[in-house]
């Protein structure tokens, strides 16, 4: 547990340090199929921190909609989106990054929220001008998703 906290803490420090070179939410370059090739931060994603952001209910809260057999310590996985078991074998890094940043660029009209995007209608005041995840949290989650390989 301490190790996880330490990892999360150090990645938080790194992301602060890397802030200057961070891609802004409106500056993300999407490929034709919605993929995002370049890292948002230039700092390699940390899969351990990524799992925490993936699971965190106030962060990615990804289990609200996706089953993930790597996170069975958490009960009640949602079924709105596809299961993420083996997701690394189905999508490459750029595609996964594009889907987490703004999945609507990959799947038109999807219910999935855009996790690194500003703007929209009637946003609750305290969230105006914010993104659901930070750029580094996106990178961390993408790094984590890449560890989800089929057995």
């Amino acid at each position, binding site marked *: 547990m301490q190790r996880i906290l330490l990892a999360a803490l150090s990645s938080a420090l790194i992301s602060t340090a890397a802030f200057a070179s961070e891609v802004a939410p409106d500056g993300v370059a999407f490929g034709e199929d919605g993929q995002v090739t370049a890292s948002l931060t230039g700092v390699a994603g940390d899969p351990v921190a990524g799992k925490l952001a993936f699971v965190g209910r106030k962060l990615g809260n990804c289990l609200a909609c996706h089953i993930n057999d790597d996170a069975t310590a958490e009960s*009640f996985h949602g079924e709105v989106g596809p299961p993420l078991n083996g997701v690394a074998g189905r999508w490459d890094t750029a595609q996964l990054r594009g889907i987490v940043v703004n999945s609507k660029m990959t799947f038109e009209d999807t*219910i999935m929220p855009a996790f690194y995007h500003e703007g*929209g*209608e009637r*946003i*609750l005041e305290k969230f105006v001008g914010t993104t659901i995840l930070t750029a580094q949290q996106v990178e961390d989650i993408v790094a984590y998703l890449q560890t989800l390989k089929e057995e």
Partner: protein
Amino acid sequence: MKRLIKTLTCTVAALVATTAVYAGEDAVLMINEEITIPTTAPAPEGSPLTELLSGWKFRSGETQALQMDDFDNPSFIFIDKARDQWVKVDGTEGKSCASCHEDVESFKGLRTELPRWNETKGKMYAMENYINDCRTERMGAEAWKWSKGNMTGMTSLISLQSRGLPVAVKTDGPASTAYELGKKLYYTRVGQLDMACSNCHEDNYGVMIRADHLSQGQINGFPTYRLKNAKINSVQARFKGCMKNIRAEPFKEGSEEFTALELYVASRGNGLAVESPAVRN
């Protein structure tokens, strides 16, 4: 013996819940062992749904059972208080509800028609609007807040008179403007999570969103006692909660928008039986 039957009913409901596609799919809503209330209805003409399903069908056997006996349904604590309020003189005119309406049973059927167009006022009226007009204009009493206990108790008592009757709101004529506004709001994506009502309650009902079983978002059970906040919830308070969940700035309770949305969502359930006061999680 009654207790034993109830326990058996719960067990049966729980068994059904584990084997069915969704919780309680085959369960039957029988209240007080005497009133059977249908929890499905054919979809109205033009509905995007294939069949109307009450939110009761999506709940666990345990939650379902709470609605099957008025002694177990916590709403009735508040309904009893509302019965006292019904005959209590309040305001400058020396009147109670009973002064004009006598027995609350005279409101049988009203719940099925609301919200509706109020010709005198020239706007859509929900039950809360009518109650507050009575209080301020006839009784000389203070208006109640839309979702406070005195109001939700009274709306529950009045709605109870229509339990079992099919929802039948009018969407044409003078109500059509509100209907169209409500429909537009239903399909408009809002909030940081950028979701519309339809994303969950039309496109994804029947699946789990984390530990919650997504329903069609039918409002035939409102006012509804929720285990989550241990009180009776108005429809519009529920809308507010949904909007906050998707990080959207909610409309105000009693606003043109929320009453229009209430009308539209009610119309999606035209034909479903009123279950007020329902119990949900």
